């Protein structure tokens, strides 16, 4: 009844003299009310007019409230959840290219060589993120309750907000979400020039990590000494692989544990495991070749030093023998590497043939 009194009071003193609904119609239109509501008020007030007359004091009226808050009032009511509100907008730190962003200043994208010949320091963050992803791949793979040896951008979004994953993994996911350029590099890492499909496999992560390490070794990073990369975080899920070291390993221990990691990884198919093992062995061999080349250079330096320093014949012969021996070793290593590549190529061909045969058998069946 209070509401009725309020309505009566707000629409005006003339209401108590109402004989018809014309005035209320006008009031309703002025307030921008839907006809159904205006009609409802009109009926209610008409019936309750006596009560309005009897009750002297009117509470705050509905009509007053409606007149205060006009229909179709333009206001920007963003969602309270900042993440939802910011969806579709750029993050404050990642400004667009048209505004002279830091990430593309001088027309250089993250991960590319800068005009001063070195890489952007953000590549260190990328490397750390890759190491974390590799060490926790199984966790990411099973995030969507499906174990298919890969994860997507959606998985990264889920991980970035999940409280159930370690902080380091969340950070790695956030890094990749904030850097679409690095994400694209990771997407196509195992197949250069391939199509960006938004899916990241173990091979992508491994290939990207090896590529980043090679680039850092080749070009260096601006201000690397001041921003040392953090050690990779420990894995929290069972069955994950140990992170690959930055430099090619020459020791048997790391390589064998890496191979064991590949063998024990349930997310890889047999073909992928064989390829990954061969790739790991090739990497190891590359390290050996580099070391041998280094030894050869040192031996040649020693040899030339003897020549210049008027050394005796015996020392010169020994130095020459050393050089020859190292050259032989280098030759053998290169031969082995060639064989490894041929084996990889043959394996790939065989797998392809097997698949083709299976397909043709299925077709003819």
């Amino acid at each position: 009844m209070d509401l009725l009194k309020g309505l009566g009071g707000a629409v005006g003193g003339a209401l108590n003299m109402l004989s018809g609904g014309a005035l209320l119609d006008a009031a309703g239109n002025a307030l921008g009310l839907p006809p159904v509501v205006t009609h409802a008020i009109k009926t209610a007030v008409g019936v309750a007019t006596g009560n309005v007359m009897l009750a002297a004091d009117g509470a705050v009226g509905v009509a007053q409230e409606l007149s205060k808050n006009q229909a179709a009032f333009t206001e920007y009511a963003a969602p309270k959840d900042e993440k939802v509100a910011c969806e579709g907008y750029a993050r404050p730190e990642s400004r667009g290219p048209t505004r002279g962003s830091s990430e593309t200043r001088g027309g250089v994208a993250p991960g590319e060589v800068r005009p001063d010949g070195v890489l952007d320091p953000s590549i260190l963050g990328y490397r750390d993120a890759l190491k974390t992803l590799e060490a926790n791949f199984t966790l990411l793979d099973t995030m969507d309750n499906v174990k298919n040896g890969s994860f997507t951008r959606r998985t990264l979004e889920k991980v970035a907000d999940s409280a159930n994953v370690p902080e380091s993994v969340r950070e790695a996911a956030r890094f990749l979400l904030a850097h679409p350029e690095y994400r694209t590099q990771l997407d196509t890492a195992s197949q250069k020039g391939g199509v960006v499909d938004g899916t990241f496999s173990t091979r992508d992560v491994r290939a990207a990590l090896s590529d980043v390490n090679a680039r850092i070794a080749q070009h260096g990073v601006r201000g690397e000494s001041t921003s040392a990369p953090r050690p990779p975080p420990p894995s929290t899920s069972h069955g994950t692989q140990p992170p690959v070291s930055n430099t090619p390993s020459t020791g048997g221990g790391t390589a064998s544990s890496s191979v064991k990691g590949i063998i024990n990884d349930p997310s890889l198919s047999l073909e992928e495991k064989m390829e990954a093992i061969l790739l790991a062995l090739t990497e190891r061999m590359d390290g050996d070749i580099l070391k041998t080349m280094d030894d050869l250079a040192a031996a040649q330096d020693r040899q030339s030093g003897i020549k210049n320093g008027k050394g005796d014949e015996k020392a010169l012969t020994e130095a020459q023998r050393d050089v020859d021996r190292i050259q032989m070793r280098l030759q053998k290593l290169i031969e082995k590497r060639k064989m490894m590549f041929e084996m990889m190529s043959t394996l790939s061909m065989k797998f392809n043939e097997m698949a083709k045969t299976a397909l043709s058998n299925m077709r003819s069946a």
Partner: protein
Amino acid sequence: MGRVIKYEGGATMDTATTEKLKGFVRGELTWAEVEGMTFEEAKAIARVGCDLAAAGRCEEARILFEGLVEGNPKDAASRAALGTVYQKLGRVQDAITEYTAALERDARNPVALTNRGELYLRQGNRQGFTDIANAVEADPHGDTSAGRRARALVKAIALAAVEKMKKEPAAQA
């Protein structure tokens, strides 16, 4: 004479821009993301749009909000605000479309709920009651003008219902 537009091909584009444009083409990024527009910037533009609409300069407000919606179609608040401008311009169907699109992104947007609810009621659509009730639920403290209006509308509707119930037994008797 018609003007021939040729591709000059000389201008180089950095990888980051290319990637962003590819992302836009694939539908992964909005144009606001490509341009680097932040939420704070969008909010500042929207505030200008609201001021223009309040001053009765609805055409200018429309241009601003249409730009914001084009830049980021995911922004439910901009869509709802554009809906109100359309409603003021008499483009009721466009307004309903925008409110509906806003509610698809944010089902608790009080501006879209209240105004769509009112428009539905005007059309005799009972869904309007639900929208208005949801608007009150979405903005229980009346932080927005739309939320306060929804509350007032609910009171008015409740009033009508009570009166109808009072009348019916009287008629039956």
